[in-house]
Every structure is written in C-alpha cells, then in structure tokens.
C-alpha cells in the first residue's frame, strides 16, 4: 500500500487538472506531455508552461511519436533544469531515459515523472491518416477490459514491462473498469507525495495496483511475445536469413536516430571508419565477384545490436520509423532480452544498477573460456 490520490473524474482529465493545479500553484514550472497541436488533431510532445495550454493535452494518447526518453535527454543534455518540470511518459520511455542518464546523457534533478500502467500504443504510421483518432474508443474499451487492443504495435502487444519502475506517480489504467469516472494516482516516491501534498483535488487514500489482474494481462502478453519471437526465429536462419530480413534496408539509419539507447553524436556507422576506400572495394570484388553499394547493411545491424542490446528497452521506436517495415523491434527486443538475462539486468529498472558492460565480477562465466 502506498499513498494515492483519488479523483472522481475521467482519468486523463483528472491528470490534466492535476497538472494545471501544479502549474498554477507554481509547484512546477513546466509540463512535458502529449498534446493536440492543430485543428486536424495531430498529436506531439509539447513543453507547456501556461495552464490553459493544457486544455488540449492528451497525456495518455496511444501513440509514441518520439520516445520521450530521447526528448528528456535533449532537454537536460546541457545540464539539470533549475526549475522543476514534470513529464507524463510511458514506462518504456522512462526506462529509456534512465538508461540515458546512466550514460551521462541526461539529468534527473528537478524532474518529476507521471507514468501509468500502459495499454500500449499504435504504430506511428497509423497516425498518418488519422486512423488512431478513430480507434480511441476501441482502445480504451480494451484497456478497461484488461486486454490488448487490436492493431497495437508488436512491441506493445508483447510487452511485459507495462508497469513503470521509477515513476513518482503511477496512474492506474489497465483493467480499471471505471477509468472514465475515477482516477487513482499512486504516489510511489517521497518526491511525488511532497509535490501533491495538500493539493485541492480529489482525496488522499491508501492504494495499490491490482497485481492479480495485471498478471492476467502479463500472461496474455507473454503469449503474444512468444508468438512474435517464434516468428522471428523461423525467419532468422543463418547468414541468408539475415540477408533476407535486412536486404531491403535503405540505409536511412532512422532506426538508430530514434532509438533512445543510440545517443552518439556521430554514429560509428556514419563515421569515416565505416567507409570503403576504392581499394577496399577492389578487394571485396575480388573475393565476392560483386558487392552491394553502399555496403555494410549487416555490419550496421549487427553492430548496432552489439551497441544497444544490453540496454534495449523494447520501446518499438525503431520498427515504427522504418520506411521499409523491417521487424526491427522484434529482433532487437528478442536479442536484447536474451543478453540482458545473462546479467539479470532490466534496463532502466534502477538508476543504481550499473550497465553490465562497465562492471564485472571476478568469478563468473567460467564456462565461456575454452
């Protein structure tokens, strides 16, 4: 049991009202959240400082235009924010940010986080023709019923990490039948509790997430995940399987650019080290008789796997952005989880846990030496 704030209102509206009050009271100076940015109803992350600008906020909109972890890194890359800011983010976005902080790409000071039990999001490509808008009522019905909505991204369908680890406040959404009438915000941290102390909204209660209910969803998601991984395993089949999967990659490197774990200013695979000189080409031609141009599609993909799999949070951004629909997240998540398992590591779970590659134990993995 933790302290919780209960507000008798639609959950999304309640959170908006809470954010407004926090801004009005000067308890915070800015809000990062999803918001409708035009008449068409397109949704984007927005940094809000004036309460009335929250009118069009849609904190729990089922879309991840950009992984917010990446945005928060951009926001605090040059130093901590001196004024307190609150961000409403999805659990994997928060985990992404924590991984970035571990890499000195962000600063947690004066940042507060609201997250929720997460019902998943739709592919960004569905936002193009406003399809997401039309799906909203179906989406919330599924969330209430503790189910996966149809057409969610594969990354979300098979995501078991739908409860945030380090959020100051968690909004209880999944399987909550009355989420459009009542909002329960769990205050997980002292910071969170302090921030809303004596706020004139709703009532303070003791609360907790319904573990049993959430486990039911977890089982469903595990099943989905297994299905997705099995499908990938069937396709991955030696070097030729990889060439089949990645052969249509156009080398846009969008996947790297949107990945919260890929933070390098200049990616190795865009650096001079990855370029071929004319004599490199000649050598390869002698060996192979021909070579794809530009070369290095697999070098890039496998290389990126060595760079990010230890910290991949399975957020789905890479697959979302890929213009040629390569099932990137399914692959990166599958490989990522198996690597993380070796070290009993869940990326973004805890700021204090070192990234496994920068630490070691003297007695371990003896079986690997031959």
């Amino acid at each position, binding site marked *: 049991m933790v302290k919780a704030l209960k507000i008798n209102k639609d959950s999304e509206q309640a959170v908006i009202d809470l954010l407004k009050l926090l801004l009005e009271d000067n308890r915070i100076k800015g809000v990062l959240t999803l918001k409708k940015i*035009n008449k068409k109803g397109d949704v984007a992350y927005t940094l809000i400082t004036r309460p009335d600008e929250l009118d069009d906020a849609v904190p729990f909109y089922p879309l991840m235009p950009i992984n917010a972890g990446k945005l928060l890194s951009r926001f605090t890359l040059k130093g901590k924010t001196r004024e307190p*800011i609150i961000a409403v983010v999805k659990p994997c976005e928060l985990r992404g940010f924590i991984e970035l902080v571990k890499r000195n790409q962000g600063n947690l000071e004066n940042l507060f986080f609201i997250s929720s039990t997460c019902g998943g999001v739709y592919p960004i*490509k569905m936002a193009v023709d406003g399809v997401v808008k039309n799906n909203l009522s179906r989406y919330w019905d599924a969330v209430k019923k503790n189910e996966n909505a149809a057409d969610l991204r594969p990354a979300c369908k098979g995501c078991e990490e739908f409860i945030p680890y380090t959020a100051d406040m968690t909004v209880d959404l999944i399987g909550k039948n009355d989420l459009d009438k009542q909002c329960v915000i769990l205050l997980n941290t002292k910071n969170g509790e302090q921030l809303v102390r004596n706020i004139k909204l709703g009532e303070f209660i003791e609360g907790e997430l319904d573990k049993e209910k959430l486990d039911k969803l977890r089982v469903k998601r595990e099943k989905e995940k297994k299905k997705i991984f099995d499908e990938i395993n069937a396709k991955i089949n030696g070097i030729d399987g990889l060439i089949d999967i990645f*052969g249509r990659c156009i080398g846009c490197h969008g996947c790297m650019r949107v990945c919260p774990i890929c933070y390098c200013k200049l990616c190795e695979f865009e650096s001079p080290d990855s370029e071929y000189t004319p004599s490199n080409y000649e050598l390869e031609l002698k060996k192979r008789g021909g*070579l794809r141009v530009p070369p290095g599609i697999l070098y890039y993909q496998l290389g990126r796997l060595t760079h990010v799999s230890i910290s991949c949070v399975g957020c789905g951004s890479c697959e979302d952005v890929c213009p040629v629909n390569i099932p990137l997240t399914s692959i990166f998540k599958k490989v990522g989880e198996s690597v993380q398992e070796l070290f009993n590591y869940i990326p973004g779970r805890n700021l204090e846990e070192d990234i496994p590659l920068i630490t070691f134990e003297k007695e371990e993995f003896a079986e690997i030496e031959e």
Partner: protein
Amino acid sequence: MSKNEEKKLRKKAAILSAKNGIREGIIDFLKKSMDRNIFDAVLIPMRVPADDSFTYVLIRDKNLLKNAFPLPPVMSIQGGKAVSSITRLGKSNIKIAAVMRPCEIRATIELTKLGQTNLENITLIGIDCPGVLPLSDFLNNPEEGMRLFDDAVSRWDDRIMRPVCQMCDKSSMIVGDLHIGFLDAEKDSFFIISNSQKGSDVIDKLSITPQADISSWQTKVEKISEKKHKKREETFRELKSKIDGLDNLLDTFSQCISCHNCMKVCPVCYCRLCYFDSDKVKHPPEDYLERAKTLGSIRFLPDTLLFQIGRMIHMSLSCVSCGSCEDACPMSIPVAQIFSMVADETQSMFNYVSGRNLEEPLPLTTYKEDELHEMEDTHG
C-alpha cells in the same frame, strides 16, 4: 567542349538489338563492354535475394550480370549515393560503368561539383525513365508491384508512379556519358547515344557505328516532357495552396517526427554530421523553457520547420527531384514534392538546372558583378 562539338557527339545514335527485351539487350551491351575490357565492373541495380526490393550492386563477375535490373520498379537507393560511396575517398582504380536513371546521374554530377565523387574511371550511362513506384506501395506486395510496373512501362503510363515521377519533365534528359533510349524504338531494339568524349570512346571500342537518326525519339520526348511539365505546374499550384502561409506549412509538417530520414537518403545532403543533428541545435534547459514561457507552450522537439527550411537553404539549388526523401518518410509527408517546387524556383533564379552539366558552377560558388539587381531594396 564547345556547343557544336556537343551537338555532333549527340547527333547520331547506335542501334542495338533487344530481341529478348530491353533488359536483356542492355545486359548484353554491358557484357560485351566487359568482354572487351572497356569496363572492369558495372554498377547497376539488382534484386535482393528475398525478392522484395532492389539495390545497387557493383558487379565484377560477369556471370552476375544476368541478374541485373537496369530499370527496377523502385528507387530504394539513389544512384548518386552509390557512386559517391565508391569514389568519395578517391578515384576508382578500375573502370566502372554506372547504369542509372537521369535524376540519379544528375545527383552524381551535383555530388561531383560538391567534391563527393570522383568521375575519373566512371562512365555514367543514363536510361529513358518511366518513373518508379512509391517504395511503400511496392513493398506491400512486391510481386503485384512488379507486374503493375511492367505493365505500366509497356504503355509508358506513369499514373501509378510516384508523384515526383509523374511530374518529372527531365525523365529522358541526356546527362551521362551515354544515354540509352527506348521509348520510341521498335520493340526489338533500342539506341545508345554518346554525350561526351568518354561515351564516344565506348562506342568506338565496341565498333558499333552511330548512324541512326533520333529525331523521332526527340519529338516524342519533347511531347512527354511537355505533358509532364503541365502536370508539374498543376501539382505545384495545388501544393502551393496547401502549404501557403505559416499555419499551413506547420500543418504540413505537423507529423514530422524528426527522424531526419529525408536528409539521410537525400543524395545531395552529403554532410557527415548534419548541422541539425549537431551540438548547434542542443540547448540548455533554460533556453527551451524561456521559449515555452513566451508562447505558453512549444512543441518538443522544437524547430521542425527550421530543419525543413534549413535543409532547403542548404540543398535546394542542387535538389534533383528524385523523390528519395518522400520514399523514406515514415509519416508520408510530401517532402519531395515540396522540395522539388522550391528547387525549381531557386534554381531558375540562377538559370541553373541541377546536374545538367558538370561545367556549370554551383550558383552559390560564383557570381556576376552585374546581376540580381531586382532583389536589391525589395522592401522599396
């Protein structure tokens, strides 16, 4: 080269047989050229093993040529980028024929002016271009896409091609060292015509005599270009009304997710580290907050339009309207159409056509003392 010489080189074409189709005919021509050591390798599109897309391959082993696809139904990699990948770090030591569409050759020429390719030992071979399908359309069903494309090409019908292709009035522009023309030819032949000394040398070495007159091809090309030019004006008129004014412009780019795919695939955006990915656009939190406070809220990341307009400023004079950016945009923003429109306007101010001629300097690297007076004191 003087204008006259240029004309002379171009006047007559050599007719080659295409009894088994244009594709076979072109492959045959390339094979013969390799047999005679005119080229050591050929850069040409090939189908990927999964059969769901195409990519450029540098072929040295002649046996691979049979899998070449001189006119693939999609442009998944812009040829200019391919040539640059091979020669950016220095001239090629082997002689390479690069078979590409006209806009890809134009990109290659722009990249050469920008110091990103070295054309020594490269022979550029252009082809009449029927256009390509939108990449995503093709990927939805590659088999069907292939069929539709072949069918459309046989009728030279561009209605299923990408919007930029439908309005491309340079689809048969002779810009390489050699050009392959077939839109006019009888079904069982095509012609090849030289456009430079390099090109003429190839024809000489193959001992084929350029005797054919291409005026009927020219007439046809003119007709097609005219039609496409009309379509271009029409499209731009419509587009202009859609993006006119700040609000419309913002709406057009409202779904941009800042992935910068467009920049990355654009052949003429060659910077290793884009300005808009550099430290220059990363600010301390106070700056972002200050901006938010003056407006009540700002989109985060901010400056989507700054990127788009900035990119226009950086490369619209060299944009070849190839459509790659639009293909790569996961949010289906009509980037290429917009850039193409702006490019037409900026290039025409300098009477410049990107990639038309290697000898024409980039407009911003040169000036005349007496020019552009109409732009002075424009507020007056």
